């Protein structure tokens, strides 16, 4: 699992994940995700290149989202594929962390 960040206009941080968000993938990025959550308030998590997510991967999304919200910020998910989105929906995570499939809509939700 690879992770990279990009600063966008309007104080939005785009975090790009690439790979499997399984147990090993979650372990690989947990620390970096927590650092991002502790230092950014508007986070767009780009999941277009995430091919798999399991329960540990959900935790990797939820814990930073809680931390960001606790600091008055917001995290949104952008572009998960159909199967990854089915996991987000089955766990009801999508009801509390919004999912967008249009990039501009995801950015606008953070303004």
């Amino acid at each position, binding site marked *: 699992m690879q992770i990279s960040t990009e600063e966008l206009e309007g104080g939005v941080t785009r975090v790009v994940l690439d790979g499997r968000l399984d147990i090993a993938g979650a372990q690989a990025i947990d620390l970096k995700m927590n650092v991002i959550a502790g230092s950014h308030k508007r986070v767009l998590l780009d999941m277009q290149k995430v091919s798999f997510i*399991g329960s*540990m991967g959900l935790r990797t999304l939820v814990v930073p989202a809680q931390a960001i919200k606790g600091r008055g910020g917001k995290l949104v998910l952008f572009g998960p594929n159909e199967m990854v989105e089915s996991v987000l929906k089955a766990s009801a995570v999508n009801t509390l962390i919004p999912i967008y499939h249009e990039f501009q809509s995801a950015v606008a939700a953070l303004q």
Partner: protein
Amino acid sequence: MNTHATKTDEESLTLQSKLSEIARVPPWIEKLTARHAIPGRIQFAMDLCLEEVLSNIIRHGYAAEPNHVLVIRHRNDRDGRFTLIVEDQSPAFNPLLVKNPAAPHSLEEISGGGYGIPLLKQFADSIDYEVLSNGNRMTIAFVDRDSARPAPRTTSR
């Protein structure tokens, strides 16, 4: 990788009870997918269910002790039904008896964990749990809905 095929279209994979061993599962499923023309949706569901079942056994059943084994078998029932059978020697535990957590109403209410068994129940088409004389057996089936087949079921005994 410890795999073998038999005339009954069963293949198996044996893992040690370490979380790092679960990384051997996706390539094994990819081989099964290619060999049996398993649809992508079912490949994903197999991958997900095995990650949840195996991690649960390793972390809780074996209490993270690394010197045990888990055996996974795949069976192609040749009627659009693909079955995974997981056996371990940990203390008896029926995950089907675990109640799903209540749906959270806010982000603050979401627990960081507890997703595994509910995901297993939702992505498998049927789950059968058996207590063995020396452990547990879970039989998890996935149905290719493009083929005619019997209705899904969930049982335990």
